[in-house]
């Protein structure tokens, strides 16, 4: 047991996650009563392939939304995902943050255990 070196909390190489723009704006979409905006996720984490998209209010409480292709995005290493977010018009003042959080795979092969969450603020 003593000799057992158990866990890596993060993998070795520098790995990054980025979301732009920092301050997206909601604009009327082609669907009446629905606002939309566009963000770009960049994945430079070799250990992560999936990111969850979330929309929150100012208190970090979830707000209903739809993202093109679903809220779980597969983004290849060094790839970008262009994400269209749709929010109901009645929620446009409530929706404050668009966040993307890395999703880590379960299992012994999974060694990177830093979950990164980068948000943009709707203005």
């Amino acid at each position, binding site marked *: 047991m003593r000799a057992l070196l158990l*866990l890596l909390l993060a*993998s070795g190489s*520098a790995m990054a996650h980025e979301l732009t723009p920092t301050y997206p704006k909601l604009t009327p979409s082609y669907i009446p009563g629905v606002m939309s905006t566009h963000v770009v996720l960049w994945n430079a984490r070799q250990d992560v392939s999936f990111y969850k998209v979330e929309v929150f209010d100012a208190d970090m409480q979830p707000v209903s939304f739809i993202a093109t292709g679903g809220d779980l995005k597969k983004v290849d290493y060094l790839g970008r995902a262009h994400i269209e977010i749709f929010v109901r018009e009645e929620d446009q003042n409530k929706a404050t943050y668009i966040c993307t959080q890395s999703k880590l795979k379960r299992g012994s092969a999974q060694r990177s255990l830093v979950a990164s969450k980068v*948000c943009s*603020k709707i203005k």
Partner: protein
Amino acid sequence: MKKLLATAVASLAATGALAQTEINGTVDSKCIVMTDTSGVFGNPSPNMLTTDPQNGGVEPVIRYDVIAADFYKAVISYPVEFSSAPALSDVVNWVGDVNVSEVSDTLMSDYDANKVTYNNTHEYNMSVAGSTWFKISSTADYGFAKSLPAGNYTAVILAECIPL
């Protein structure tokens, strides 16, 4: 008359050259979160897992790059539960900390003094543009000096970057 014409043409040419050339650029604020150094749990005693280097562990380091000052806050939470572990029949007591380990600008040296701490979360206002490295420590103590079951243990650190 010839002299006057030449002056007028030269003047027009000069005006044209001044009006045509311009370079535009935009710098967007952005935040990049990077995992910089591996973190490893050491197992110095049967009931304990720790990232303390003196006990066989390695403290993970996370780097934040912010392009513009005062646009972001870094929110880092050390783990308070295992994300995967063998079946545990007793409680695990977690202790952890987050500290600035390196900075790219000396003005960042007061980040630790100005941070806001609650529960297992440490919040830093990224008031200076550049890179900041945060070192996270984590210790899990099982039961009352009870041996942890053999197996793989994993725990997750959450590193967030939130615009102000």
